[in-house]
């Protein structure tokens, strides 16, 4: 038993670091953070990753994935987060692609996988509906067969970055009777189709990430259905588990710890690290939990490497990881002494600049971070899963 990296793993770590320091420039980082350049800069960054062969690292090797061990995946995502570099947008490469290569036809694979890998198309996810959040069985969007097309009508909600999307992957009802789970199909829909309209939902950080997508008699070719009719729920479920394992966010948390240490050393916060045992204790409680979470994640990865499938461990990682993220987002907001509440800093520079430069990010991550315990199956749903699967209750 050991936790040390092997020479090969250390070499891989150095390779990732080297790539990041040369390709993830401060200029690129700034353009990704700025809403007006977010989309183009994100695509540019994903293409850089793809040129390196890393964009679709989780895919099967035959489709362009990397033959990485779980340890390598851990190193890769840790280094990305440590550098503050975003991972690829999940909707295409991480969410629809596994469904495509697992259940899609050869034509569908050939058509969509390469352009998804190259970030030539932007995907959005059409699962949630008004009135059906964590409960996908309550979906109402209907797809009625009309010749070689489905006619789709309904609404999807909380659709992340639908305003940028070229395509949507979507769960729709294709049968009116039978169990809800056996009446759902998985469709790919071109966002330029007639009858689609996207209305923005402003979220509590004041930004526009989310949307409602209205479908009004949208005609979708039958060939855009993945797998069998009425089996979409099964395909989507396999994918949900994947979504959760990606959510523990230890490396992101570590970066916030560094931010907090720096902020607390600033002369302005009133929370000097050296002088206040109570604030050190608050940070230490979180950091200690984080140390444990890191090894909880590593031990799950270790099991994956040994060929065991992740069960409710992914629920556990999501639960603990998102709670720690929120605790750190809160503490980081707090140590600015109110300055992270500034949304527009005005012109002249009287205020302590070290807070104002970070204020936008600190506030936005705190605010939108509240969603982390809601999306991807709310933490209450994760607890239900653990109670059932983990404890047999």
């Amino acid at each position: 038993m050991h936790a040390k990296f092997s020479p090969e793993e250390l070499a891989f770590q150095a390779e990732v670091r080297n790539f990041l320091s040369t390709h993830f420039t401060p200029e690129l980082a700034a353009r990704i953070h700025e809403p007006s350049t977010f989309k183009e800069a994100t695509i540019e960054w994903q293409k850089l990753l793809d040129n390196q062969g890393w964009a679709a690292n989780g895919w099967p090797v035959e489709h362009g994935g990397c033959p990485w061990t779980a340890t390598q995946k851990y190193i890769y995502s840790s280094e990305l987060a440590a550098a503050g570099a975003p991972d690829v947008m999940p909707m295409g490469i991480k969410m629809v692609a596994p469904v495509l290569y697992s259940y899609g036809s050869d034509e569908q694979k050939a058509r969509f996988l390469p352009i998804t890998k190259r970030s030539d198309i932007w995907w959005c996810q059409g699962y949630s509906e008004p009135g059906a959040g964590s409960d996908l069985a309550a979906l109402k969007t209907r797809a009625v067969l009309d010749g070689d097309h489905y006619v789709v009508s309904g609404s999807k909600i909380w659709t992340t970055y639908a305003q940028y999307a070229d395509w949507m992957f979507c769960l729709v009802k294709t049968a009116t009777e039978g169990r809800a789970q056996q009446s759902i199909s998985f469709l790919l829909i071109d966002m330029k189709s007639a009858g689609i309209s996207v209305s923005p939902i402003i979220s509590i950080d004041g930004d526009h990430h989310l949307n409602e997508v209205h479908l009004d008699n949208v005609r979708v070719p039958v060939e855009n259905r993945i797998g069998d009719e009425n089996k979409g729920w099964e395909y989507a479920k396999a994918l949900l588990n994947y979504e959760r394992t990606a959510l523990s966010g230890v490396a992101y948390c570590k970066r916030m710890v560094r931010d907090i240490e720096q902020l607390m050393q600033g002369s302005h916060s009133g929370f000097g690290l050296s002088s206040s045992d109570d604030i050190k204790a608050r940070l230490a409680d979180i950091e200690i939990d984080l140390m444990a979470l890191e090894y909880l994640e590593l031990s799950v990865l270790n099991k994956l490497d040994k060929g065991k499938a992740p069960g409710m461990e992914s629920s556990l990682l999501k639960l603990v990881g998102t709670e720690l993220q929120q605790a750190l987002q809160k503490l980081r907001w707090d140590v600015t002494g109110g300055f992270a509440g500034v949304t527009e800093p005005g012109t002249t520079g009287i205020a302590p600049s070290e807070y104002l430069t970070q204020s936008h990010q600190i506030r936005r991550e705190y605010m939108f971070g509240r969603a982390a315990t809601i999306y991807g199956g709310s933490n209450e749903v994760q607890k239900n899963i653990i109670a059932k699967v983990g404890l047999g209750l």
Partner: protein
Amino acid sequence: MDFTLNQDQEMLKTSVDRYFADCPEDKNPAEMWAEFAELGWLAMPFSEDVGGYGSSIIESCMLTEAMGRNNINSPFLSSTLLAGKLLESAPASDIRESLLSALLAGEQQCSVALFENSYADTLENLNCKAEKTSEGWTLSGRKVLVDNPAANSIIVIAQTGTNADSLNAFVVSADHTDLQKQILALMDETQVQNLAFNEVKLPASACLFPEGGAANALQMVMNESIIALAAEAQGAMDALLKTTVEYTRGRKQFGVAIGSFQALQHRMVDMFTHAEMTRAMILRAQCAVLDKDANLPMIVAALKALVGKKSRQLAEEAVQLHGGMGVSEEMPIGRYLRRIMMIDASFGNADIQRRRYCQLRYDSVA
């Protein structure tokens, strides 16, 4: 011991609650201010000597609590309860009388410039300097997060020397030409400003406490302002709890109202408990003011710490229990959360207040 409101207070409460419940969120601020004046609310907390009605912290909290419940921003706290009451506590002078009469009539607004680094500052670490000259005073330094850039006058807190009681208060006109300003928008949809004083000249009459005593007066009005601010948070907490209970009663998942899930019920009971605890602590602080309790500073620190902690927990739970609706601007949950966060930050957050409480409570013991 008697916690009941008198008849006048009951009547005031009814009209205040009705006014704010009917007040649209985007009401024109100048119009609202004029109505406050008309209703007598801007004169209410002042003694009859200066033209007020001599009401107490109870009445002031009725106003701020109703504003909090209805998510309404107003300079009432910063202009009337903080700046106005600080002016009132100063000895008689021309500037005091003229400013007070303009404030009570609703013709002007005023603001206190206190913090220099962040809301975490305490009165002990202020560095802004006022030097006495033959013509009057010269002000140098920086102030940050000063409430209400629309205020006509700013009362700047500055050091005139090095001893404990050398803090004083100086009236500066907002349009003083030597004043550098940076206006900041905050996430609760209010504005504040940072001010730089580069040897700003003031007449001798600008000094409000020529005989000293500003620190004590300031501490007292800050204590009462913090109680009124806590009442605003209370109003927001009550509104959030109410909307959460209603939402979970109506929202269905897996075929039943999510409000019927026991785990969520128990969490809403925790929210309820938070709100009842803060309400009781506000009552305690109000009584400490009315009874002239010597422990008021300690009680206020405890109150601000408690309200900061519990209101944020409650607001975060309200977001969580609203699910996707909670993180969107479709419902006002986020507005309440942002206001609650700014209330916690103002005058020093829960961590800072707890430390202050510990100093006042244990440092003499150990």
